[in-house]
C-alpha cells in the first residue's frame, strides 16, 4: 500500500495535469449545457402574425381571434406558448376573454392539449388576459407552424375596441428546456374588434338555416318569424329582423330589480365594490333556451331590517324574445355567487337561501318597466371566479381558495374571495362558503 502511494506521489505531475484537464472538461460541459445551448435557442425566431386585422361580431356572441405561429427554421418545433393580451383600453367594456371556450377549438386540429385562460383584470384602464397553450403529447408530434385562437365574448354594448398581444411578455417555447424563441411580429400584433348590433352578419351561415344575410343584417326567410318561439314557427340561430314585423318592439320589457347578497352588511370602503356585475337570465315556455343579460347593480343604504343585509338595485332591459304576457322564471347569478332561480314576483324565505322556485309558479311581465323586489331572499355566495370564471359549483376549490388566502388584502385575492366586501378575506367569508356547500350548485 505504501509503495502504491509512493508511486502515485512520484507521478503527481501527471496527476495534476490530468486533474486540471478533468476539471476543465467538467467546466466546459457544464458551461455549454447551461449557457451556450440557451443562447443558441434564443436566436431562433418564431414569426407571429394576427389572422385578421379587423373582426366584426354581433353583440353577446363569442368569437375567436386567430394568430399564426411559425418558426423560422422548420426543424424547430413549438410545444407551448403563453400570450398576454390587452383589450378594451380607456375603460371600454365591449368584450371579455371567454374562459369557457373548449380547449380543442383554440388551436387548429386541437394541436394544444391544454389551454389555460386567465382574466387578469384591468390595469391602467385596460383589460389584461393571459392565455397559455401546452402540448403534452410526445415531442414527435410537434409542429413548427401552428394557428392558435384567443377566445372572446362580445358584450351587450356596441362599439370598437382593439385586442393586441403584449409582445414583451409573451413567450413561445420549443420542445426542450429554456428553448425560448424570439418573437418576430410580421405585422402589427393587434386586431380591431367591432361589436355590431345583434342581427349583424357577414355570411348567410351566421344567420342559421332559417334566415339570410342581407346588407349585414340577418333577415328571416319569408316562412319564418324569428321571434324566439319555436312553437309558432322555425327560428334563426341569430337575432334577426322579423318578417312579419314584430308585434312588440325589441327591449319592450325592462326590470327594475332589488337584490340582496349574503353577507354584505355595510358599505364597502372600496368604491369599486359598490357596483356588482350580475348575470340575469330569463327562462320561459316561449324561449328555447334562457336569454342572458349582464347588468350592473349598485349598492344602496336601504335594508329590510336592522339585522338584514343591504339592498342592491339595478335595471335590466330584456331582449326582444321576452314578451309581455308570457310566463317566465328569472335566474340570477352574482359574480361570486350561486345562481338562484326565482319564479315569484315577491319571494320570501324563513331561512337565508332557503327560497325555492315551486313547480307551476311563474312571473308574467308587463310591457315597459317591471318592479321586482327580490330583497327578501338571500343570494348565497360561494361560487368563486377562481380561474377567472365561475364553474357553477361550490366545491373544495372554492373553500380551499378562501382557506389559503385568509387574512389577505391583496386586490386580486379580494376581488375573488372577499364575499362580504369588507376589504379582506376572513373567517366570515370562510363561514359563507361553508354555508353554500349545502346548496352546492347553480339552480337551473
Amino acid at each position, binding site marked *: 500500500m505504501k509503495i502504491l502511494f509512493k508511486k502515485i506521489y512520484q507521478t503527481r505531475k501527471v496527476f495534476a495535469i490530468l486533474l486540471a484537464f478533468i*476539471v476543465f472538461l467538467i467546466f466546459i460541459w457544464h458551461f455549454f449545457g447551461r449557457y451556450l445551448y440557451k443562447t443558441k435557442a434564443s436566436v431562433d425566431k418564431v414569426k407571429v402574425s394576427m389572422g385578421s386585422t379587423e373582426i366584426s361580431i354581433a353583440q353577446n356572441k363569442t368569437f375567436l381571434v386567430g394568430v399564426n405561429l411559425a418558426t423560422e427554421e422548420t426543424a424547430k418545433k413549438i410545444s407551448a406558448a*403563453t400570450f398576454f393580451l390587452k383589450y378594451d383600453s380607456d375603460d371600454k367594456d365591449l368584450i371579455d376573454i371567454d374562459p369557457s371556450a373548449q380547449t380543442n377549438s383554440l388551436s387548429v386540429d386541437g394541436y394544444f392539449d391544454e389551454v389555460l385562460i386567465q382574466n387578469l383584470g384591468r390595469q391602467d384602464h385596460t383589460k389584461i388576459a393571459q392565455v397559455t397553450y401546452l402540448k403534452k403529447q410526445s415531442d414527435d408530434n410537434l409542429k413548427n407552424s401552428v394557428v392558435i385562437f384567443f377566445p372572446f365574448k362580445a358584450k351587450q354594448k356596441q362599439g370598437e375596441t382593439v385586442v393586441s398581444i403584449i409582445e414583451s411578455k409573451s413567450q413561445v417555447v420549443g420542445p426542450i*428546456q429554456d428553448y425560448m424563441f424570439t418573437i418576430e411580429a410580421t405585422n402589427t400584433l393587434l386586431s380591431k374588434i367591432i361589436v355590431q348590433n345583434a342581427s349583424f352578419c357577414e355570411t348567410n351561415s351566421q344567420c342559421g338555416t332559417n334566415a339570410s344575410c342581407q346588407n349585414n343584417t340577418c333577415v328571416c326567410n319569408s316562412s319564418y318569424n324569428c321571434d324566439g318561439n319555436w312553437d309558432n314557427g322555425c327560428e334563426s340561430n341569430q337575432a334577426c329582423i322579423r318578417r312579419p314585423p314584430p308585434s312588440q318592439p325589441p327591449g319592450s320589457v325592462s326590470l327594475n330589480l332589488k337584490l340582496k347578497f349574503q353577507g354584505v352588511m355595510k358599505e364597502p370602503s372600496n368604491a369599486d365594490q359598490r357596483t356588482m356585475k350580475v348575470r340575469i337570465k330569463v327562462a320561459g315556455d316561449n324561449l328555447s333556451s334562457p336569454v342572458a343579460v349582464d347588468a350592473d347593480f349598485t349598492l344602496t343604504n336601504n335594508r329590510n331590517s336592522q339585522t338584514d343585509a343591504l339592498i342592491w338595485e339595478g335595471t335590466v332591459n330584456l331582449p326582444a324574445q321576452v314578451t309581455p304576457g308570457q310566463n317566465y322564471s328569472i335566474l340570477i347569478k352574482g359574480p361570486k355567487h350561486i345562481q338562484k332561480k326565482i319564479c315569484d314576483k315577491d319571494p320570501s324565505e324563513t331561512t337565508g337561501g332557503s327560497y325555492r322556485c315551486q313547480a307551476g309558479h311563474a312571473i308574467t311581465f308587463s310591457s315597459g318597466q317591471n318592479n321586482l323586489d327580490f330583497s327578501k331572499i338571500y343570494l348565497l355566495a360561494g361560487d368563486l371566479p377562481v380561474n377567472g370564471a365561475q364553474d357553477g359549483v361550490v366545491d*373544495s376549490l372554492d373553500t380551499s381558495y378562501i382557506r389559503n388566502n385568509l387574512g389577505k388584502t391583496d386586490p386580486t385575492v379580494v376581488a375573488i374571495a372577499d364575499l362580504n366586501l369588507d376589504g379582506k378575506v376572513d373567517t366570515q367569508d370562510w363561514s359563507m362558503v361553508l354555508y353554500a356547500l349545502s346548496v352546492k350548485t347553480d339552480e337551473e
Partner: protein
Amino acid sequence: MIDSKKILKIIGFSFFLLIIVLFGIFVFKEKKPKESKEELFSSSKLISPTTTNFKEVVVVLKKVDDFTYQILASSYNHDIVGFDFIVEKEDITNSSILTASSLLSSFSLYQTKKENFLILTGVKKLNFSQPTVFSKTPVIEIKLTKPIKINLKNSWGKYTSKLVDNQNNILTPKIVLK
C-alpha cells in the same frame, strides 16, 4: 519522518482528488429541470390555480366488506386542504342508501346526493394548521344499507373528483378501484 510527510501529502492529494470527483458527480447528476413547457405552465401559479394531473396523486376505492367501502388517498407530498369525490351507485334501481363519514378529524365532510351520485366535499378545518400529506391514507368511509356496487368517478356534469393543495393547485387523481 520523510516517509510519513510524503504519506500525509499523498493522503491530502487523494482527498483533494476525491472532492473533485464528487464535484464532478454532483454536476452531472444535477437534477434535470422539468421541460420548459411545464415550467411555463406552472408560472401561472402566481396568479391563479393550475390544474395538474399528477401521476402520483392516487385515490383508491377499497371494498372493506359488502356494506363498507373506504376511500384512500395519496397526495405525493402535497399539503391537502380540500377534496371532492364523486361516488356513483351503479344500480340506480337499488334502494341502498349511501352515507359517508370523514375518517380524519382534521377534515369536515359535506355530502350532496344527486340522482345516483353522492358528491363528497372534504374541507380542512381552520384549527388544524399542520400540513396534511396523504399517503394511502383512509380519508372517507362509505356505509351502505344494502350490498351494492359503487364506483368513484373522475367527473360527472359540473362535478369533478380532485384534491386541492395549500397553493390552490387542483390535483386530478388517478382513480383505482379495488
